[in-house]
C-alpha cells in the first residue's frame, strides 16, 4: 500500500513540484522535505503524492529496476 517510487523533479513552484518517471508526470508536494534542499533535476522518493526523501540518480535507477521486475512479475 505504501510503496514509494523514485521520480525526477521537473519544475518547482512553492511547495509543489512537477515530477516525472517513465514518461508519466505528476504533481508532488514537497511539504515533507522542506528541511532539505530540493532542486529541479533532483530525484525524490514519492509516496501518495508526497516526496518523502531526496535520493541520488543511482538509487533511483536501482529502485526502478526493482519496480520493473515487480510489475513484470505481477502482470
Amino acid at each position: 500500500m505504501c510503496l514509494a517510487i523514485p521520480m525526477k523533479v521537473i519544475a518547482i513552484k512553492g511547495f509543489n513540484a512537477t515530477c516525472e518517471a517513465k514518461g508519466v508526470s505528476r504533481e508532488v508536494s514537497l511539504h515533507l522535505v522542506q528541511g532539505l534542499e530540493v532542486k529541479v533535476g533532483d530525484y525524490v522518493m514519492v509516496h501518495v503524492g508526497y516526496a518523502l526523501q531526496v535520493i541520488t540518480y543511482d538509487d533511483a535507477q536501482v529502485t526502478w529496476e526493482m519496480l520493473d521486475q515487480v510489475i513484470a512479475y505481477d502482470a
Partner: protein
Amino acid sequence: MYSVESLLRDIKNTSLSKPFRILNVCGGHERAITRAGFRTLFQHNIHLIPGPGCPVCICPEEDIAYAIHLAINENVVIVSFGDMLRVPVEHEMGGCSSLIDAKNQGADIRPISSPQEAVSIALEEPRKVIVFFAVGFETTMAPIAATLLNDLPNNFKVLLSGRLTWPAVAHVLESQPNTFDALIAPGHVATIMGSEEWQFAIDHHNLPVSIAGFHPESLLLSLQTLLGNCSNKVVTLSNRYPEVVKQNGNAAAKAIINKAFTIVDAHWRGIGVIPGSGFSFASRLSHLDATNDYAPVDFPSQCAQNVPETTSPCEKVILGKMAPDACPFFGQECKPASPKGACMVSDEGACRIWYSSGERSITNVIKKGNTLKVEMK
C-alpha cells in the same frame, strides 16, 4: 563494493547449529524476499518469517464496519486507498461484508491514491459530506498529516485508522519470547521515523536489527549483517538502506505528524489493543473527526476489546506464528479474487504475496542484479 554473488555465497556458506529466525514486518520486504526466492535458497540456515507488515491487514474490523455503516446509512461518500475496499469483515454491516459490497449496492464509495485526491473530491462535491477513511503506517500518516494541516473544505471529514509500526513489533517480541533471532526493520517507515526508533529491540529484546531497502542487494546485505551478528555474538542496529534512511529520519515529516496527531492505544486486527500504537487527532484537528458527527454503531464482537490470541488463521499469519501456505484455506477458499481474509487482499499481505508468487527462483534476480553493486556505508 559487494556483488550479489558474493553476498549469496557468504550467506549460504554460513553454518549455524540451528536455523536463524528472522522476522520481517514490511509487506514490501516480504514481496522482495518471496520474489527473489531467498526463503527457498537459504532454508537450511535462515528462516524468514513475515509478521505484521501491512496496515490494510491489521485495520480493525469495527473501523471497516463503521465506514460501511456511514456509506449506507448516513449517505456520505467514503473515499479510501483502493485495497481497503475489498477487505472482508466477518460481521456484516447492513448485509455488506466489505466496502466494495456496499458500493455494489449503491453506496458512494471511491478509491483514491493520495490524500490530496480525497480533498479534491470534497471540493468538487460541496453538497456532499466526504469521509476519508485514512489507513496507514507512519509512511502514509506523514502525507496524511500534511494534507490535514492545510485549509480544508467544511464537507471534508476523516475516519482515522493509522497505526505505528514499532509498538506492534514490540508486542510480537514480548508475547513470543525466544521465537525470533533477528529483525529486518521496514525501510519506508524508517525513512520517516529514523533508524534509531528500532534501538528498543536491541535494548529490550537483545535482538539484532537491520534496516533494509527493497532491492535484493539491500536485503542480502541485511541478512549477511544479521548472520554476522549471530556468528560474532554481537547485537547491533545496522542501516542497509542509508541512501534513503537517516538515523533520525525526516525531521520535517516527524514535526508535521506531531502537529496533526497524538498517540493513543489502538486495536489491531488479529492482535488486540496495543498501547501507544495508534494515531488520533491533535486538538487543532479534532473538528475533522467523523466519529464526532455520527453515532457509533454496535459492533457485535470482541473486536473493541483486547483479544490477545484467537484461532483465526489470518491472525496467526499476522503474528508470524504460521506460514501463509499452512492455512487450510490458502489457494482453496481463499484467493486474491475471492479473499477470505485481509492478508489475501492487500498487495502487501503475506498470503497475497505467497499466492501470487508460487515458486520463484533466484536466477532472475542474479541476472538482473549482477550489474549492480551496492556500496557499504
